[in-house]
């Protein structure tokens, strides 16, 4: 058992509007790529999209590639249910993201950046374009060659998966590719590509401006820095909050719950549902490898109080996955259909309660065999809900 060692601590970096990006950019560009990589590495920043890959390593790997053409892509295909932080970053502090992209270009040797923006956020485009124009103008002024284009998605959750996103940008169906090869060596247009989540890029801005220590000092071991949390569901104060990583779920619920919190879905539909009895022992962050009591997350925190039927919640998730699976690999395409139809059949009494065990095994198979993160993570919410709220599935 790991006891929660940290109280809930608010941080205020991401949305702090300092209006000094020109200075930060020109100063950072003076540093050698190697120094910047080291800075990122020592900050221990991990990807904020949910998967948690070390950002510094990603940039390093791409910088080592020999190719003449490389790309920097900002993943703004925020589609995980319960997540809405990236939209807010792009609305309020777009220049931080743009600056970080340009710095990444400097580090890896790329002159071209793209923001893949989900179709649902099309209304952001005019302001974002304005910001880009201003940004590019400044880059030109200081003699740094870097341009950024927006690429619009068109309503496909799976395109948040990095290789599916490349396929989509290449004008194809957003079907994830086989990995390896990884994007750092073969990404968009088969060129080395760094693809980072919006929030990850915004954090690098903090690191480049204040140094890695300021970031590293926040959070706990393995989970350094702060993170934006999108809080929704049965809470009196839904919204976006920047908190230090490593908090216990109990502390989180004390702050954000409505006094009757029965469970929290950490990490959206593809994350885990944590029931009340495990709030104390669950911390939010990356702890080396996923251990079940330490949950990484893209920041989606959905609270459910005792009025909610967990069957309905699971039914809703599975309906989501059923539609949003790209459909190419069999465990995910057929597995999602079986899970969805299966829980309904149990609920209706057409299958016995024991069928849930068969479905749990199936969800394990999906975790182990699906081609991409989507199919692999359907089992997360499925098993955590079915195991913790079995009665609600049956009666």
């Amino acid at each position, binding site marked *: 058992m790991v006891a929660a060692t940290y109280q809930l601590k608010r941080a205020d970096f991401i949305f702090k509007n300092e209006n000094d990006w020109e200075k930060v950019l020109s100063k950072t560009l003076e540093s050698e790529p190697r120094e910047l990589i080291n800075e990122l590495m020592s900050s221990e920043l991990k990807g904020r999209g949910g998967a948690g890959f070390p950002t510094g390593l990603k940039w390093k790997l791409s910088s080592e590639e020999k190719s003449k053409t490389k790309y920097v892509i900002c993943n703004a295909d925020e589609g995980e249910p319960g997540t809405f932080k990236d939209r807010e970053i792009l609305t309020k502090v777009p220049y931080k993201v743009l600056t970080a992209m340009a710095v990444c270009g400097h580090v890896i040797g790329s002159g071209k950046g793209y923001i893949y923006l989900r179709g649902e956020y099309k209304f952001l485009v005019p302001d974002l374009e304005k910001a880009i124009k201003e940004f590019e103008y400044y880059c030109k002024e200081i003699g740094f060659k870097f341009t950024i284009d927006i690429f619009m998605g*068109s309503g496909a959750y799976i395109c948040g998966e990095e290789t599916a996103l490349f396929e989509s940008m290449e004008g194809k169906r957003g079907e994830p590719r086989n990995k390896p090869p990884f994007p750092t060596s073969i990404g968009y247009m088969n060129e080395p590509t760094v693809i980072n989540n919006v929030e990850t890029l915004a954090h690098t801005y903090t690191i480049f401006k204040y140094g890695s220590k300021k970031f590293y000092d926040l959070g706990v071991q393995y989970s350094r820095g702060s993170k934006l949390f999108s809080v929704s569901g049965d809470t009196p104060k839904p919204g976006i909050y920047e908190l230090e990583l490593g908090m216990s779920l109990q502390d989180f619920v004390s702050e954000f719950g409505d006094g009757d919190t029965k469970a929290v879905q950490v990490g959206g539909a593809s994350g885990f549902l944590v029931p009340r009895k495990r709030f104390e022992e669950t911390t939010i962050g990356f702890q080396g490898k996923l251990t079940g009591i330490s949950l990484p997350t893209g920041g989606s925190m959905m609270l459910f109080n005792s009025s909610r039927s967990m069957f309905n919640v699971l039914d809703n998730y599975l309906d989501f996955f059923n539609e949003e699976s790209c459909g190419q690999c069999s465990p995910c395409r057929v597995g999602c259909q079986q899970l969805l139809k299966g829980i309904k059949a149990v609920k209706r009494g057409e299958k016995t309660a024991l069928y849930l065990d068969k479905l749990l095994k199936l969800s394990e198979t999906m975790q182990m065999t699906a081609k991409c993160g989507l199919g692999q993570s359907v089992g997360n919410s499925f098993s955590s809900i079915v195991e913790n709220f079995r009665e609600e599935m049956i009666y």
Partner: protein
Amino acid sequence: MNPVKDLIKTLADEHGRSRENLLPILQGVVEKEKYLTEYSMVEIARELDLPAAEVFGTATFYSFLEHKKMGQYVIRICKTITCAMKGKNQVLLAIQDMLKIGIGETTPDGKFSLLETNCLGWCHKAPAMLVNDDVHTELTPESIREILSSYMKK
């Protein structure tokens, strides 16, 4: 010349004629025409020198690239968990009651189409919907009447 053909030519001139320009062009047609017809897909295939089946396969992957007839205003109401918890069904009933159409249908005057969609990213202000590209949040059966009335007058 056919206006859709013109539109596709203009879009191809603007974005380019490579495979990676396909999505922006499809999006451009949908923005103007609300949906993709067989004709428009063939014309896009011709313009980009792509197999028509590839255009179709790509377009049908994306839920915003409709290939069935859509009205002038496409309502997409979010059905994902938080919106569902916060009264999306009542809002949906209010819309259906007001427009007299079901999900997937278009009003006879061609003004509105009603669709359900997955998470729009407004969970903290649920329930939410899109009308074309406009976002409307914290919907109630009351607010929905006002919102739709304003589109009716447009």
